[in-house]
């Protein structure tokens, strides 16, 4: 069936768009977190579809697992009752609609006539043969070693920052 890939992409696209809309429009933050979880799973599946297995795994583990859980903790800190009554949107939301719609239309009108540039050397077969994680690791630790180190540094700072910021001030009262 020649139409299958298009069909699958169509499904994924529609679901992702729907889920993202749901994420930002739910009144209850916990619901939006749940929807976002679902969204991440779909995105991970799409990566698989684009045969980036390692990235899909990372997506699920880091994004869905770590970051979203973090969000959940913070959401649970809120007093949900008060949150439900308050109105969700800022006063000037029509402007925002206009702006984001404008940006989307602008991008869409450009991307329709997008021409693929020169093909790189990592063909799909090569990756499958060597497995995606190995090739990724190969590039990462040779060509992009320095940015890798910086990334680790960023994470370190993030950790310390989070602790300092969120720590309860003992002396301040």
């Amino acid at each position, binding site marked *: 069936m020649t139409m299958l890939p298009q069909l699958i992409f169509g499904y994924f696209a529609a679901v992702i768009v729907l889920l993202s809309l749901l994420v930002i429009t739910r009144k209850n933050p916990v619901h939006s977190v749940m929807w976002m979880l679902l969204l991440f799973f779909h995105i991970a599946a799409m990566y698989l579809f684009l045969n980036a297995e390692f990235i899909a795994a990372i997506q699920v583990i880091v994004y869905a697992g770590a970051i979203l859980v973090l969000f959940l903790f913070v959401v649970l800190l809120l007093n949900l009752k008060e949150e439900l009554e308050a109105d969700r949107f*800022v006063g*000037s939301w029509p*402007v*925002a609609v206009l*702006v*984001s719609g*404008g*940006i989307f239309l*602008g*991008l869409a*009108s*450009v991307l329709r006539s997008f021409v693929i540039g020169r093909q790189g050397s990592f063909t799909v077969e090569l990756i499958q043969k060597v497995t995606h994680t190995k090739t990724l690791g190969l590039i990462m630790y040779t060509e992009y070693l320095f940015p890798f180190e910086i990334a680790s540094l960023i994470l370190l700072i993030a950790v310390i920052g989070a602790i300092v910021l969120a720590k309860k001030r003992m002396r301040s009262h």
Partner: protein
Amino acid sequence: MQHYLLIPFLPFAAFLINILFGRMLLKEKAHWVSILAVAVSWVVSVMTLLDVISGKTLNQDVYTWILSGNFRVSVGFLIDQLTAVMLIVVTTCSMLIHIYSVGYMHGDSGYYRFFSYLSLFTFCMLMLVMANNFLQLYFGWEGVGLCSYFLIGYYFDKKSASDAGKKAFIVNRFGDFGFGIGIFVIFLTFGTVYYEPVFSQAAGFATKSINFLGYDLHLMTVIALLLFCGSIGKSAQMPLHVWLPDAMEGPTPVSALIHAATMVTAGVFLVARCNAIFSLSELALTIVALTGAITSLFAASIGLVQNDIKRIIAYSTISQLGYMFLACGVGGYTAGVFHLYTHAFFKALLFLCAGSVMHAMAGELNLHKMGGLKKYMPVTYITMLLASLSIAGIPGFAGFFSKDEILWLAYSSTNPVGKFVWLIGTLVAFLTAFYSFRLIFLTFHGSFRGTHEQEHHLHESPKTMTVPLMLLCIGAIASGWIGISNLIGELVGIEHLNWFTGFMQPVLGHPEGHGTHAEEWGVMLISIMAGVSGIGLAYYLYIKRPELPDKIMAQFSTAHRVLFNKYYVDELYDLLIIRPALWTAKNVLIGVGDVRIIEAIVNGVPASIGGFSKQLRRLQTGLLQHYATIMAMGLFVIGAFMLLRNW
């Protein structure tokens, strides 16, 4: 002749001594310095006159005053017949009035200051008279203006006195404005401001015309009229006469010296000195004659109804000055100067008599508060009577000869306006006689109308005041005898009896008038008739039927009010010039100009910038979304721009 420099610089030295050392050292003795200086300069003037009579004249520069490019002028002295006569007039009157002031100003706090100003005035008047170029004439011109400012405003603690002084100076400045521009035109045409080259080349420029302020006018007329502007200012002629009556605020010797004998005659002296220019322009002469005639009629009419003794004499001065200009206008410069010469004596005398009356009446000036002073002040009475006879033009007295000469020249002159001017002259002669004797009868005859305390205080003035009166009285009578007209000369058999005209002939030329002897006799008779009838009418109204004047006044009350308020000229000037000037200054210039236009810009620009920044500040709302939205919009705009650019 050789030490002529003493004449002006002695009074100047006296001025310096008095002003510098007056307060501490001289105090009461200040008058000796001034009188001595003036007396010596009088003696030197007489010697100069004798030298000039023997034919010697002098034109010498002392030092270069201003040198700039081709404009060169120096302090220089020209002594010829005209200067000699003026020297005599100025120094004689000045000396006598100095002596008179000793008595009059006795006990005054600023005694030394008064005499220093008198000396300064004499110095400036002499510099004016002896100048050999227009700029030094201008120096003397403004110098005497300055002294009249000081002397009119002598009692400076009185507002009216300081107002009068200021008014005199500013009105003179109007005249000097025209005079200054006249000097510019002279320099631009002749390339020099010295008399001698200007008058000799004047004939050459007779036909030329000049583009003056855009109009092509006859050159000589422009120059003549501009110079005449100065004369009008200084000699208080028609438009600029308002300052002289107010100048009576000053002490009486000042009025005698400055506002009768010397300063006001500077205008006539200027016209006489520049006769070479004036006679080249028919229009200018006519204007001079007309202004003189109208002013004399105008002033004489006001003089009829005034009650202040000094104001009457002031208006009579303006009227007599009008006479002199009338003479110059019809070409009779010699007659004009002769009248100036005689007028100086009897007018100074009139003022000094008025001063001694005031002195006796403790400052009272109103005629209706006096009367019957004859028996208290015989000397003053006699001298004032003789002076009034002289001014009324009664034969034998100085006034008659000079006035008759003018009227005859007016009648017989080739100038078209001559006859009309002669008519006005005769009418003025009648009015002059009338108001002079009204003054005599109201002050000296009839019964005393003042307060009892004043009557008790009445006494004849001290010697230092009466002696100058007598000397001036001789001058008032005898001064006319040097200029008796040739007509009477033929009658009496002496060929050239009119010595004065002969003497002045080289400088002022000779007026060519045509008219038979019969007409000359006729004119003389008419002028005598006018004088006598004036006196008769005054006698009739104020001695015979004293109640008549009030009835007439009631009948012509409006006319009387107009005349009494001096045709409302002062109020007119105030309305037309002073008030609008102040108004424009206050609201137009400051209100609109400075404040609304310039300051608005100067303060407006920073204010508007401030306002704009305030608006900008409102953009910072503090809301996260607003900033994000703006960023997103920026993104969108750039995106759109990049997109549209390559389409």
